């Protein structure tokens, strides 16, 4: 039955018991994303950890809080469990992969389970275009927040250099 294909047990589990929900400190950037067609909302914070970052690829810590449908809530929970403490580069790769999975269209996309972990459970959502935005809401917020944090960091470095 279609419904179960979309609402995999793993999604319902994340929805019922969301992981890591609640905003934490410290953070570099907080973003607020909304899905204008249904009113789902997420606040998402990221903190870049340059401590043992190989060159320009820091670790990203995140926290979030949000409200919305089961798909958006479960997806944010998976995001939090999957992308906490990963490097920017592998996090961005995971986001790309999630987008590819969800916008697969007619030909199904064979997901990279390594990158996505539990998020592969969202493959069924690709068949429901109206829900794709729900599943991507948190992931797009993460991408936006990280990009902002990187830009802020680059600006700070640049300022320091000119001041020196």
């Amino acid at each position, binding site marked *: 039955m279609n419904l179960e294909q979309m*609402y995999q047990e793993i999604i319902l589990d994340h929805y*019922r018991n969301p992981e890591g929900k609640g905003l934490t400190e410290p953070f570099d950037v907080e973003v607020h994303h909304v899905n204008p067609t*249904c*009113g789902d909302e997420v606040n998402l914070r990221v903190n870049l950890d340059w401590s043992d970052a190989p060159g320009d690829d820091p670790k990203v810590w995140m926290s979030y809080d949000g409200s*919305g*449908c*089961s798909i958006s809530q479960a997806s944010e929970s998976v995001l939090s469990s999957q992308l906490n403490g990963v490097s920017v580069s592998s996090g961005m790769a995971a986001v790309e992969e999630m987008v590819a999975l969800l916008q697969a269209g007619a030909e199904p996309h064979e997901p990279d389970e390594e990158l996505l972990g539990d998020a592969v459970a969202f493959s069924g959502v690709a068949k429901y275009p109206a829900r794709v935005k729900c599943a991507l809401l948190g992931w797009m917020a993460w991408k936006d927040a990280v990009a902002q944090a990187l830009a802020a960091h680059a600006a700070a470095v640049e300022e320091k250099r000119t001041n020196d």
Partner: protein
Amino acid sequence: MSAAVDVLDVASIKRDFPLLARTVRAGRPLVYLDSAATSQKPVEVLNAERNFYESHNAAVHRGAHQLAEEATEAYEAARATIAGFVHAMPPEIVFTKNATESINLVAYAFSNSTDLARGGHPADPRFVLSPGDEILITEMEHHANLVPWQQVALKTGATLRWIPLTDDGRLDLTDLETLLTERTRLLAVVHQSNILGTLNPVESLVRSARAVGALTLVDACQSVPHMPIDVWAMGADLVAWSGHKMLGPTGIGVLWGIPEVLAAMPPFISGGSMIANVTMAGSTFAAPPQRFEAGVPMTAQAVGLAAACDYLDRIGMAKVAEHEHALTSYALMRLEAIEGVEIVGPVEPVDRGSAVSFTVAGIHPHDVGQVLDDRGIAVRVGHHCAWPVCRRYGVPATTRASFYIYNSTEDVDALAEGVVAAQEFFGGAR
């Protein structure tokens, strides 16, 4: 467990609508409960459009050849039919692409008149706004009758005010006297809310507005398709609605107006076919309705909409209203009987139409909608382009079922059973 008997012969009506025979998802028969968003089209309407294209298509009001004559005749006959449907005369009917354009046409009459007056050009003072002037709407407006007025306020310096809502989904008229004053230049109000279902007392509101010298605009998107309407009896200066919600094609809307008021409004969209005289240095304009119909119009769509009016007239709008009233009463009863279901809007089937919004405790409307969809039941979920109403009632969104002539009590039963199924499916949730 069907408790009521349908007023209309739904089975026979359904046969006129090719789309309603299709199945969705895994072969489920379609139960279409989203007519407040857009209605389905009877074959008669599709045939009327096609016949126009196959036999009479030409640019209207322009050519001297036979096809152009026939196209013009078809377009103007459509205007007459649509006018008759709301007890109006043809020159009072302006064709637009949808109700949103109809309302914007009025909004731009204000901002354009204000611009013209600022530049020292002639403009009817009723449409010229200054800081201190007020536009009054309600908190239950569709975005189409809210955002344009916010834009007018931004552009002219006028103030936007609104009539608030009561907890049971009606206009709170307690402070009407402080909201509707000599400062009020326009009252723009929805006749029937697309999210709450509330039928507003527009006749009396319009009378009060007229008493303080304000112009009046009624958004009749959700009433013209569903009940007998006499625009003159309503009493407003201007009334806007869409064709696609009343069995007509997409791409056509209507603005009705009192001739003298329409004549006082400057052009909105300008170009060909709306002019009286054109030189490079300046132009003069035709009388309404032509003044507001620049360019090659939506001719085939006007013809299709006229066929829709004929179809509805044959059923009889009083019967349509009666049928929907019975369905709505039954739906309210069935939904209220489900634990955890909360109606957003009037719970009494009095002064309300057939849009029924509700929430289900612990389940997001998107998820309710998905379970219903899986069972072949098409409802709408979200803020229904009336986001402030959701905020007012503290819900992120609602699930909305809405009924029309092709819906039956069985459809209501399917809805109620679907909601229970959603509760079972998400049973374990918080």
